[in-house]
């Protein structure tokens, strides 16, 4: 082992290509997508789907077993999560709202990936390698249950006569919920993973994820939210009234295990894996904003004089330097967290720290950038004001900054939920 910061070649190549995508397919329509909330960026979606089918990159679809690997070939260290984090950072540098409608299963598929049996993975994930771009979404949040997921009220009751689960509840803030559940000829048939309790008395131990296919009777998209930013991404409310799904659509054990809280832990495992990835998207937005600031300063002949003591720097230089420090540190924390994931090292602490940091970095950089750029920052002529609005979500979704601080604190203090609430 060693300490190294060289971007692996396959990642550098990928980034080169993705930068072109970000510039030509995202930035070019960024403003239009922002001004026309809920418009669908079909061009970008089709392109990404085709590209991902061709390369297999970013897809959670089960891969065919590789045959007869040369045993003499030296094994390369795995870099899957690192590739993904870089990809997300670059696409979010392009447009984070549009990145969120990248087909391939998103958080829904990630939940299946984390908690399903091999048979279930085959059944639910194969579609993402199909001809049409396909979406899946995760339904956790409810009107009365946000960060406190144990307050979830949705229920799943087994109907023993038909061997079906009957699911009832109200889910909100479902990213890509509409694209996953509303029929669209351009897209394949999607699904949602709904978190519901199989035994409300059991608390978290009773929580399970259920895969609900598009077209299931009783499932309705009731609302599309209007948001501060990430407007290219649909955020849906979904109502479930006696929605019936086959028995094998439950992720994890169908019976309550009071002692282990296994069901809920599986849901949380999804977050361990995805937090640094969400952090990466925030870093991408922040980088876009900082690059804009530096470009504008350079155009106007303002140089940043690296190497001076703080009390000799101008106010702008200090701000830019602080932004650069934050951005790079935030990004390196993401890279470390995903590197740990790739190398099967437990990374719950690093994951949450990277999300805490990215939430801060992304909001502070974009907010400072708008301030520094004055009228240019506030004008809708440039994208900076949009990035400021887009950025804020980083500190809210996938665990707010506060929830992640709690997770970090528990880790460093060796406390469980009962000791530090």
């Amino acid at each position, binding site marked *: *082992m*060693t*300490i*190294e*910061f*060289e*971007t*692996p070649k396959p990642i550098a190549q990928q980034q080169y290509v993705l930068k072109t995508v970000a510039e030509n397919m995202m930035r070019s329509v960024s403003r239009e997508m922002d001004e026309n909330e809920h418009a669908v960026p079909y061009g970008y979606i089709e392109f990404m789907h085709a590209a991902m089918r061709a390369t297999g990159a970013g897809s959670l679809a089960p891969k065919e077993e590789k045959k007869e690997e040369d045993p003499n070939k030296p094994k390369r*260290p795995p870099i899957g999560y*690192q590739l993904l984090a870089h990809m997300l950072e670059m696409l979010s540098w392009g447009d984070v709202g549009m990145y969120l409608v990248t087909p391939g299963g998103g958080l829904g598929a990630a939940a299946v990936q984390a908690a399903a049996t091999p048979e279930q993975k085959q059944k639910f994930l194969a579609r993402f390698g199909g001809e049409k771009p396909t979406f899946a979404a995760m339904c956790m949040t409810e009107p009365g249950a946000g960060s406190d997921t144990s307050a979830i009220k949705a229920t799943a009751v087994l109907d023993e006569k038909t061997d079906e689960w009957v699911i009832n509840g109200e889910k909100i803030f479902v990213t890509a919920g509409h694209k996953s559940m509303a029929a669209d000829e351009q897209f394949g048939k999607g699904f949602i993973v709904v978190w519901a309790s199989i035994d409300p008395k059991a608390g978290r131990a009773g929580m399970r994820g259920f895969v609900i296919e598009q077209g299931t009777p009783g499932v309705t998209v009731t609302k599309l939210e209007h948001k501060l930013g990430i407007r290219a991404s649909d955020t849906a409310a979904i109502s479930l009234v006696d929605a019936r799904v086959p028995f094998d659509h439950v992720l994890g054990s169908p019976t309550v295990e009071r002692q282990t809280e296994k069901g809920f832990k599986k849901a949380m495992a999804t977050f361990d894996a995805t937090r640094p990835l969400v952090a990466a998207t925030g870093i991408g937005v922040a980088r876009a904003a900082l690059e804009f600031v530096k470009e504008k300063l350079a155009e106007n002949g303002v140089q940043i004089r*690296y*190497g*001076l*003591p*703080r*009390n*000799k720097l101008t106010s702008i230089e200090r701000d830019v*330097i*602080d932004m*650069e*420090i*934050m951005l*790079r*540190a*935030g990004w*390196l*924390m993401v*890279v*470390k967290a995903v*590197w*740990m994931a790739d190398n099967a090292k437990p990374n719950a602490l*690093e994951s949450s*720290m990277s999300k*805490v*940091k990215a939430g801060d970095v992304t909001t502070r950089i974009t907010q400072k950038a708008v301030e520094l750029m004055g009228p240019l920052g506030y004008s809708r002529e440039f994208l900076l004001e949009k990035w400021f609005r887009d950025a804020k979500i980083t500190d809210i979704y996938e665990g707010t900054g*506060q929830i992640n*601080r*709690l997770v*970090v*604190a*528990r880790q*460093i*203090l060796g*406390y469980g939920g009962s*000791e*530090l*609430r």
Partner: protein
Amino acid sequence: MYSFEPNEEQQMLMDAVSRFAANDLRPVAHDAEEEGKLPLKIISKGWEMGVLQASIPEAYGGFGERSAVTGVLAAEEMAFGDLAGTLAVMTPSLFVTPILLAGTEEQKQQYIPPVIEGDWQPYTAALIEYAFDFDALALKTTATADGGDYVLNGEKAFVPYAKDAQAMIVYASLDGQTQGFIVPKTAAGLRVQEEAEKLMSLKALPTYRVTLEGVRVPKSNRLGGETGHDIGPILAASWVTLAAMAVGVARAAFEYSRDYAKEREAFGVKIAQKQAIAFFLAEMATEIEAIRMLTWEAAWKLDSGAEDGYQSAYLAYMGATDMAMMVTDRAVQILGGYGYIREYPVEMWMRNGRGFATFTGLAIG
């Protein structure tokens, strides 16, 4: 490739330094600070671990190759024990490392082995000047060419062990460029103030004002010879070292206040069970890790000759100065009244923490 694990050699060095920090430095740190002196045997023991010697090639009396990464790993571990002690142990590096980085072959052969091969000896360097607007890139101390010599004039401050130093590197402005000059103890016009300086912390590290009045050194004493040198790599090496030491001091304060918060009770619970304290600690841990990553990357860039190594080292250092202040201040806050009492170590770490913004050139590794 990305990789975040020290190699075996680095890990062994870190373990050894870490033991020295915990078993030797930390236990004497409080008294050393209060009494204003550190036992020589502790300094010697630190020196014998060979952190500096391991970064010097055999040709110059050492037993390794220079690696900024290894340097920052060791610096963090040692500063976790005590900053003043670390700076004392590493003082000879202020003389040796710039010569290694920027000296001519003759300079390396002449000056490095006598320092490296023996016991710890006070060789030092003088960069800082006593002015609020001190700037390493615009020094007030001047060097002017005069025949076969350079003539140095000016006043330096924060020069560790200057009184006993056999020789020091004096940095001065030569035609607007910061250049280093090797000045022996015996040079006429070199005057070291009798009394050590009185600083907010680092009381265990004797530092002095040094006055140069028409000090003449032969042209061959200019670092890098006739054509001189770029000050950039020397500053960059100092910045990453200081950044790593800031991480070490911050980690000391963080761990101490974390452990305290898990013991101290208020309102029927440990104060660590209160989110106000727990979130403080979570943010401290996050910032420490953030700056550690920046520091490692900057050091790695210096080792691999990356174009933006200088800039990265500067950013790591600038980030570290803020982080160290934030973390040590919060550690004092978590201890409350006890944090303010000198019997507990956190107030000293807070005084250390404020210093990093001023310490450019006071450490290099």
